[in-house]
């Protein structure tokens, strides 16, 4: 293989273009009181790639995702987004910058229909003020229809047309996961974070979800960072993998490199003490 992965952009074996770095995390340290959840971790996410974060339970993967999405504020280290240092900001401001995410335990709005849930994903695209919305004329109505069209594309893409008007609370687990993905995707994020998108799914649902992730990346060029426990899925899907253990980074590279990394093998299989 001759691709130079340090170049500004390169083309993968399957013909996708991986662009420059979108998000660069430098020396992130996160503590909760005396507990060090993340210890001095640096890695980057490049445009158009599927980046996986793996590690045993409690390794700090979800904390890492929460740092990226602005929910946790790291004590040390910097987050660079599109080349500029990201100041301290609230999670909703991070979302306005073009980050979207899904959650490990589904965080949908149970009282709303699937369509309304997906429409919330587009709230940063809708600018009508409260008075325009109150009379439902002009900008408010126009935006509602334009964004509905965008949402319908996502609905088509994720094959959830039949449940469009169903309240989310009534849906089974697998579909809820898909609706949550739809909500994140509707935001047309420049970086999509998926926290265990396949947790608790059967093989068929996992295959569907993998297909959606690959298609999303392929068709819309969405940059994806995901956490997943299913090694088979991770190794198949991702371009590069970060491995964490006890809050430290123990490996970073292509799936093949990571698979052969002795530290990673030790972390997953244990070290013999003879």
């Amino acid at each position: 293989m001759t691709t130079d992965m340090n170049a500004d952009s390169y083309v993968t074996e399957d013909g996708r273009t991986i662009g420059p770095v979108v998000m660069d995390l430098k020396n992130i340290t996160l503590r909760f009181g005396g507990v060090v959840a993340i210890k001095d971790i640096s890695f980057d996410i490049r445009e158009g790639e599927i980046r996986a974060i793996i590690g045993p339970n409690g390794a700090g993967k979800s904390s890492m995702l929460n740092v990226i999405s602005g929910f946790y504020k790291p004590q040390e280290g910097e987050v660079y987004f599109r080349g500029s240092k990201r100041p301290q900001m609230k999670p909703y401001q991070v979302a306005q910058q073009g980050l979207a995410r899904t959650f490990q335990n589904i965080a949908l709005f149970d009282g709303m229909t699937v369509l309304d849930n997906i429409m919330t994903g587009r709230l940063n695209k809708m600018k009508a003020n409260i008075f325009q919305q109150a009379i439902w004329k002009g900008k408010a109505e126009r935006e509602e229809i334009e964004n509905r069209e965008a949402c319908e594309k996502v609905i088509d893409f994720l094959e959830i047309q039949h449940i469009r008007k169903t309240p989310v609370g009534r849906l089974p687990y697998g579909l809820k996961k898909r609706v949550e993905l739809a909500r994140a995707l509707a935001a047309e994020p420049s970086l999509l974070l998926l926290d265990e998108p396949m947790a608790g799914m059967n093989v068929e649902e996992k295959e569907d979800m993998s297909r959606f992730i690959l298609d999303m990346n392929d068709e819309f060029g969405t940059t994806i960072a995901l956490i997943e426990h299913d090694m088979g899925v991770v190794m198949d899907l991702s371009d590069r993998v970060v491995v964490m253990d006890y809050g430290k980074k123990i490996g970073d590279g292509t799936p093949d490199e990571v698979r052969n990394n002795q530290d990673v093998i030790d972390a997953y299989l244990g070290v013999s003490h003879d």
Partner: protein
Amino acid sequence: MFYREAGDFKTSYKDDNQTFPIRLDRMGYYIVMFVAFCVVPFFVNDYWVNSVFAPFLIYAIAALGLNILTGYAGQVSLGTGGFMAVGAYAVYKLMVAFPDVSIVIHVLLAGGITAVVGVLFGLPSLRIKGFYLAVATLAAQFFLVWVFNKVPWFYNYSASGQINAPERSVFGVIVTGPNTEAWAKYMICLVFVVVLAWVARNLTRGMMGRKWMGIRDMDIAAEIIGVNPLMAKLTAFAVSSFFVGVAGALFFAVYLGAAEAGESFGIAKSFLILFMIIIGGLGSIFGSFAGAAFMVLLPVLLKNVLVGGLGWPTDLAAHLEFMVVGGLIVIFLILEPHGLAQLWRLTKEKLRLWPFPH
């Protein structure tokens, strides 16, 4: 013609977004509107307006307001009575100070003033949630009533401490004061209800409503997908208080004519309106109307049946009324915690399959 969507094809998202997607619903809505505007005004008398229509319509506005805050945005409030008092005293001061300006503008301004007060008392909602917020709004209730009783400026130093609505008219028709005709009272309330219900519906089906419901259902997730929680909560408080303020203004100016803060806008009023939205259905426009109708009509009905029909003494009937209403509330909460709106929804779902349920 059956009650269902089948055959009623929607070819645009605009059609699909409409409030009543089913043809029979739409017809029902037009019929209700026609009867309300073109039939009822010619037949109402003082008794019907004062004991049924005016309180029902005004409480419906207040219930809509509280439903926006509690049902849609998930912020419990026990300050409704206090905010109604703000609306009432605001409209009183405006009516007295600017007698030449239309009462409609006064009522809307009173709503605006209440919205500002509501936002002030809504500020703590960013930090405190659930029961604690309820207690904070309870403080608003007592504080506001206390202020209106203690500061004579609010009731223009009248000896009785009461405020009395001066006579004002709209398009030459007297709508406040003792000389108001029954139909005029009814019409001004009806117009406000219809317009505000339409506004409430528009706000709740659009992005504003989605933000509110997002905060209600899962505030952390809402924040992470881009809802500014402070703005969402404060707009909910503002819009809700606006509605409640308009209701308070109408309650005083059109319905009561004379009011005293502690008596007319006490804690009992806050609970009454809270019961309305719980019985009617949280997070539902229809539920606000259903709950207001239930809480206004049931006592009237009971009184007519017990006193008028069975000839019971009034005090006995009054006490029995408390017991029956209380009992019904408890039964309701156990059997259908989502209120009348949910019953209506279930009925509609059954109707859609009727007469072939399989």
